[in-house]
């Protein structure tokens, strides 16, 4: 079942004198339960693409269908609600709010959707042990490490049970041990059925995904799937080769 479908998505930034084409005819689709990584160098248009899917930005042309609904046609009023219900976000710089304890940060989207407090607690209990955040729930974001912050952020994104979880360079601000733990978490929640779309330029991060899309100069150049029995190391090697080939095409 297809959850997300992008058709001919285009994005052009215009300033006074310069017109920059960030995305040019992007087409791809995501099935339920997939874990997709989008790779590309800085300036390839990764973040623009993610922002459009996240309804944080508007496409210049083309359609984006999430569960069959065209999100480019959403009214401003509906966008916030849609974002809350259908999407979960994990950012590179966590975007946790210092005014809330970690627990309340996780509850924030639920509170906004006016869920009963008892229900919130139940949902959190289901999540907390697999994410390893029991110990830090009562603390504040500025009191915990980067890796712990990102766990809280993942819990915040996953607790609403979104159709699609979007992650923008989730390990970008973390050291390698913390990165690995976070990526394992993504795998874990993906195995439980959560669809994940991640944007990164890290080989290692991508190797945790089941499918990798490469974008360059605003178009999807290439995609590779991880084989049934392929080890992560082997998959990483293949991603590396594909990237190498892409870059060589430049010259």
């Amino acid at each position: 079942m297809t959850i997300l479908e992008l058709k001919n998505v285009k994005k052009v930034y215009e300033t006074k004198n310069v017109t920059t084409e960030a995305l040019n005819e992007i087409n791809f689709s995501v099935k339920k339960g997939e874990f997709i990584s989008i790779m590309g160098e800085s300036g390839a248009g990764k973040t623009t693409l993610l922002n459009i899917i996240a309804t944080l930005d508007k496409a210049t042309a083309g359609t984006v269908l999430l569960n069959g609904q065209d999100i480019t046609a959403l009214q401003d009023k509906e966008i916030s609600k849609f974002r809350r219900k259908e999407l979960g976000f994990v950012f590179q710089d966590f975007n946790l709010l210092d005014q809330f304890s970690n627990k309340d940060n996780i509850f924030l989207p639920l509170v906004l959707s006016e869920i009963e407090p008892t229900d919130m607690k139940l949902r959190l209990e289901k999540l907390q042990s697999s994410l390893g955040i029991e110990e830090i729930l009562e603390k504040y974001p500025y009191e915990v490490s980067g890796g712990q912050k990102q766990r809280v952020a993942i819990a915040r994104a996953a607790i609403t049970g979104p159709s699609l979880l979007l992650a923008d360079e989730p390990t970008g601000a973390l050291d390698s041990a913390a990165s690995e733990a976070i990526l394992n978490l993504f795998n874990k929640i993906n195995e439980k059925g959560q669809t994940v779309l991640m944007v990164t330029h890290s080989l290692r991060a991508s190797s945790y995904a089941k499918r990798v899309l490469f974008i360059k100069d605003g178009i999807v150049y290439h995609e590779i799937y991880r084989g049934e029995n392929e080890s992560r190391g082997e998959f990483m090697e293949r991603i590396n080769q594909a990237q190498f080939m892409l870059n060589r095409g430049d010259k």
Partner: protein
Amino acid sequence: MNFSMARKFAFRNLKANRVLEVPFILSSGLMFILFNIMASLYNNEYVQTRHSSLAMIIGFGIVLTGLFTFIFGVYTTNFLLKRRNKEFALYGVLGLEKRHIRKIISIEFFILFAIVGAMAIVGGYVFGQLTFLILNRLLKDVAGGVMDYPFDFMAMGVTLLLLFAMYVFTVLRSSFRIYLSTPVQLLGKHHSGEGEPKSRFMLMMPGLAALIGGYYIALTTKGILSSLFLFFGAAILVIIATYLLYVSLSVFMLKLQKKRESYYTPTKFLKISGLLHRMKSNAVSLASISILSAGVIVALSVTSTIYSTIENTASNTVPRQYQIESPEHIDQSNYKAVTKELNDTVRSTVDDSSKITNDFSMLKMMAPVVRVNDEFKMYSAKTSGLPNFLLAYDLEGYNARTNSNIQLSDDELLLCVNQNNMADMKNLTIGNRTFKVKNIENIVPSNFAVEVYCVVVKDLDTMEYLSKTLQSAANVKSATYENSPITAAVSWDAKGVSEKSYSDVVKNIADPNDYDVSVRAENLKLVYGLNGGFLFLGIVIGLIFLTGTILITYYKQISEGYEDRSKYQTMKKVGLSDKLIKKTSASQIVWMFFAPLAVAAIHCMVASKIVYQLLGLFAVKNFMEYGKFFFIVLAIFFIIYFVIFKITSRAYYKIVQG
């Protein structure tokens, strides 16, 4: 790093950060200008010569303004420094030693404070001069004489001293902060907030104690002179209490709300956590706004009460436009003759007697008495107890004066007092006669600053009885006593005459007879000359406090806007709608709006009793008079504050959404 290099750095930084520094200079400059003007009032000639207490009140005002200026200074420099932590961190990363950074900061702040100082001195003089000019023009009929605003070196010295203290404090604080932290910590400081404040019982208890103490003093103090000293004491206690309680109690209450189930509803969730998060800096500014507001309200309501009393004083000291009083002592034998002579004199001032209107003649007697329960006794050197004054009028004169038609029998009299708490008797015994008392509205001339009983008796006979029973000292040294003198006066209005030349005519005709002439217009002028300066000072002080309130409110909104901006961007990403953002900040703002206003109003109401007693200095003898102006001023202040708030919150939204 040598000085010239540090200087170059400093100048470049100042240029780069002008977006932050221009508002800082303008607002701090304005605050110091206000302080300078306030300090200049102390040496003002009127302040120094009018009343010894006045200089003290102004001195207290200076201390208060200085305190706020300092707090505001800390608040604004804090904001400035916080925004620049990143920059300092970068210097550290790029290889500048901490003492180099300190040097740069010292130079930067020296330049900033020098500009502020120049503004304070020049601006203080210019604005002070301007305010005085305008007020002198506006109040030229009521402020009595021109008030000067000379350049005051003492005020300049005090202002510069405060500024210097501020500078040293700022540099020490920022160096200390830089000294203690690594570049990475500094980088993080900008991002992280202040953290959740702890509920501080340690602060709450002394806060409550100070509040109770201050309120207790305000509510229990009696007597005019002790009021003044205790007023300052109470004010200081309440100021301390306000700061402590804002810091501790607000956190305590918000935390209580957080524990409730209803905390997890969108608006409350965002509002309570938002308020709690920044309560530390909020508490200080809210407390400042509360106290300044209370200052504005008290200063202006006191001033307007004094002002209105001036009119009253003049009109009930001289019940009609003109009055002449004969020096002769009245008894049954000469009563008719003296009254006729007075009336004839009045007629002779005009060519046509129809120009005289509302005229009446009245008998008057005054004697010092001692009140023992419901009895008045003669006051002599041998009597123990403090004397009160007794003022007696005749019924005929009273009826004519007030256009009423009261009848009295021989054993009845009318009584009024100029202080409400004294009118508490049903019968009044004087000598061997006991009178039934009927209370009337106060007619004691309000130029009496002491406590006065006023009776209206049936006729001259009764008055003569009082005169004999309650004798006055003829000569204090030899302790001889004589009948208290009864005098007669005629009061009238004149129409169809030129005021100026007519009063000259009256004086010329009255002089040969040794008549005592009172002209209400001249009396009014005299009282204005004496008390009008208070109106002036009240307005100046009110303006100073009001501007301070505006400044703090504005700065608070701006700095919060910058701090909330990234927060709201994040919230948007998590799925917070623009509408909810607006709703949340609106409800936060409402809280922030009403809290200081409510606190100020409560403070003022509790203070009203002691303030009213202080007003006794200015012959204000009616509590309702003060109450009336208090509520009028409160209502006007509410409107002004509301407008300020609307304007400044617009600035806040602009920053948050930009």
